[in-house]
């Protein structure tokens, strides 16, 4: 047997991008359904335009999102938690800068009971003051712990420099943030943003004949008392490239974060930039990993990413390196970015990256709950699932010349925000 030759490879020309079934409930709420999978389980995610973007009060959006679990007029936090526990169901709340969501994970056979509980939380949360106080003390202690982490210090400073002047993507919560909002502030935000006109739902997993009916009987019956008025404020789209150093006494490693703003998913270049980023630091065999980890042993890991948010996007490199080598690590990172701008990528490397990315795209859509995440990350931009067909097309067809052009357009080594902590 020949063990020295790589087996022949085959990669798909097409990827099946599953189209969700769209249903409109009685009250007009759209539900995207992915009925698939072998296990008798469901995930119901209800997504609201209720992230920090829609207000100017730091941490208010997060507090409302997290404290929805803290009790209703009929149930204390304890009773509500126990009610979900009784069916083995889980609630997860998530608040990003753009959207806030509530996710329910349940066995299909308890769909009816758990949908009712979920609606109780969404329509009748009361935000008890002692729960607000507990939330504050827990978050303040966590904040103090985070401030001992070089990675955290570099990350929040970086976001702040990239999105300055109170921009919701760059705001940093401090200890006061969690105590400055009154119960009325929370209730007002809750009533105005968590309402049927401001949401959509994704249902994934193994549904049965009754699941949609149950959803119509619960979520579909929701009628809001207020007319939702989205508030959008304007923030500067510029940032000032600069270097920032945060000394940390006794740190044996330094956290590094370097990056700049780029367009988001709505721009045709975003997909191509993701390919460029993969070459640089988006996978284990990337140039940054090969150089700083596998050649020099400076770090346990280094990576880079392109991030898309509804109103902007950014690119960044992140690592933690031995404190003694941080200067050279910075030199190497800039060197690798510069090479992207100057030297054409070789055919073998580009083909590897393309194949890897196609595999990653397939993995990202494997199973109903993975598909539901993909649906979410297009819907919030008003995009459809054919976004991924286009994305596959971009990966397959991008050329070395296009990559150089992209690097020259978007990645200027002198146009970066650089933060080093420790």
């Amino acid at each position, binding site marked *: *047997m020949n*063990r020295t030759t*790589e*087996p*022949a*490879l*085959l*990669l798909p020309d097409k*990827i099946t991008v599953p189209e969700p079934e769209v249903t409109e409930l009685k009250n007009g709420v759209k539900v995207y359904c992915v009925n698939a*999978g*072998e*296990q*008798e389980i469901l995930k119901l995610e209800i997504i609201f335009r209720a992230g920090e973007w829609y207000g100017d009060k730091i941490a208010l959006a997060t507090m409302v999102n997290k404290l929805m679990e803290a009790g209703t007029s009929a149930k204390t*936090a*304890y009773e509500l*938690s*126990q009610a979900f*526990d*009784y*069916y*083995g*169901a*889980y609630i997860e709340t998530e608040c990003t800068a753009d959207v806030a969501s509530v996710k329910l*994970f349940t*066995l299909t056979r308890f769909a009816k009971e758990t949908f009712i509980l979920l609606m109780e939380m969404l329509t009748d949360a009361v935000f008890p003051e002692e729960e607000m106080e*507990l939330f504050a*003390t*827990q978050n303040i*202690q966590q904040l103090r*712990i985070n*401030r*001992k*982490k070089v990675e955290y210090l570099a990350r929040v400073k970086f976001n702040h420099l990239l999105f300055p002047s109170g921009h919701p993507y760059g705001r940093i919560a401090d200890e006061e943030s969690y105590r400055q909002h009154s119960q009325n502030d929370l209730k007002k935000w809750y009533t105005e943003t968590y309402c049927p006109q401001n949401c959509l739902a994704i249902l994934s997993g193994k549904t049965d004949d009754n699941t949609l009916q149950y959803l119509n009987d619960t979520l579909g019956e929701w009628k809001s008392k207020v007319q939702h008025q989205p508030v959008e404020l304007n923030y500067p789209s510029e940032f000032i490239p600069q270097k920032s150093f945060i000394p940390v006494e006794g*740190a*044996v*490693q330094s956290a590094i974060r370097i990056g700049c703003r780029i367009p988001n998913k709505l721009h045709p270049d975003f997909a191509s930039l993701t390919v460029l980023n993969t070459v640089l630091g988006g*996978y*284990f*065999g990337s140039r940054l990993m090969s150089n700083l*980890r596998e050649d*020099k*042993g*400076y*770090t*346990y890991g280094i990576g880079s990413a392109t991030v898309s948010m509804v109103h902007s996007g950014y690119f960044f490199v992140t690592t*933690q*390196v*031995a404190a003694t080598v941080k200067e050279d690590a910075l030199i190497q990172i800039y060197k690798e970015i510069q090479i992207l701008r100057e030297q054409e990528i070789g055919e073998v490397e580009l*083909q*590897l990256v393309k*194949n*890897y990315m*196609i*595999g*990653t795209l*397939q*993995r990202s859509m*494997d*199973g109903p*709950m993975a598909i539901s995440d993909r649906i979410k990350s297009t819907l919030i931009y008003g995009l459809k699932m054919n976004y991924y067909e286009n994305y596959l097309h971009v990966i397959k067809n991008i050329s070395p010349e296009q990559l150089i052009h992209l690097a020259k357009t978007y990645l200027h080594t002198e146009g970066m925000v650089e933060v080093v902590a420790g």
Partner: protein
Amino acid sequence: MLKFEKHTLKNGLTVIVNYDSSTPLVAMNILYKVGARNEDENKTGFAHLFEHLMFGGSVNIPSYDEPLQRAGGENNAFTNSDFTNYYLTLPVQNIETAFWLESDRMLSLAFSEKSLDVQRHVVVEEFKQRYLNQPYGDVWLNLRPLAYKVHPYRWATIGKKISHIEQATMNDVKDFFATWYRPDNAILTLSGNIQPETAFTLSEKWFGEIVSRPVKNKIIPQEPPQTEKRILELQRDVPANTIYKAFHACSRFDDDFHATELLADVLTGSKSARLYYKLVKQDKIFNALSTYFTGDLDKGLFIIDGRLEEKISFQTAEKALDAELAKITSELISEKELTIVQQKTESALVFSEMNIANRALNLAYFEMIGGAELINKQIESYRSVTREKILSVAKNIFRQENESVLYYKTKEEKK
């Protein structure tokens, strides 16, 4: 109910396949039955360092990662006290690449000096990043040797100290490979769009010729029963005082295993769990509180980990904690508490079967502990736990002489 087929090659390699035609992918998992518990006490951290070296090229293939990525695949690995696990997923049409790569590194490694040198540095940086440069990062480096005096669980997977990693030699690497990386000491599992017959044929083709090496079984010294409470105080630059209690508990093979896991959930498994509710929400003694059972192959630990509220003293906190433990060791839990933890465990198990990589790992894990078919008996095992069983397990665990306590203090704290 997870369906699978099992086949053992002549060289002792066990192969298990779960066929799922709904995915275009396949996950491959190889578990080697070697972990930090098999290490020499003067060469700790070696099983994990070795895991890094498994990516440094094999006898016929200079790079593991490159061809896998070219095939659209992704992979990773982890090491713990009991075993070392390698896993990958890729589009099923390229499955042969996975067999080619995994079989070659089971056949033999390249044993490259450059790779050893670089990975020593990488692992030292991992040590710093995860254990030294993090608030509370060194808890396990201290708690393990407090709770274990004899068993190799007394050191963490990363190793006792950085110098052990720095001193690893190529001879150590070769010895370790010859001793542990044998086909009969491994379990190969696949989950995804591959028929069992196809997988068995490919396993014969690629792994069949690997010769099994002689077994050098080293007996792992077992921990004698603890006879008195142990205490350790540490002072660090952290923002909150934290208490860690470690109690000796049962092994993965013990009849008490499932009850011990449920006991941890009864105490802090959710916001309505009794310990969490009483001590965090009601009495505001702790700001964060969790309990968990390590569930290791040899006798593991039951841990209580509580971060104190700002103005609460260690003495007050421990007294409150002990009062709750006194209750759970003297009174039956309620029917409702039992139903809740059983129901939650059941749905967690069903959710964990959704992902092909998880399925492949779980099959390998259960094969290691006695047979892959045990995977389908889990729900029944948790369902058959009674309130009386939980009481007897709690009584057996929460004894003062069975306890090690770590007081992890802020710098400002003076006692």
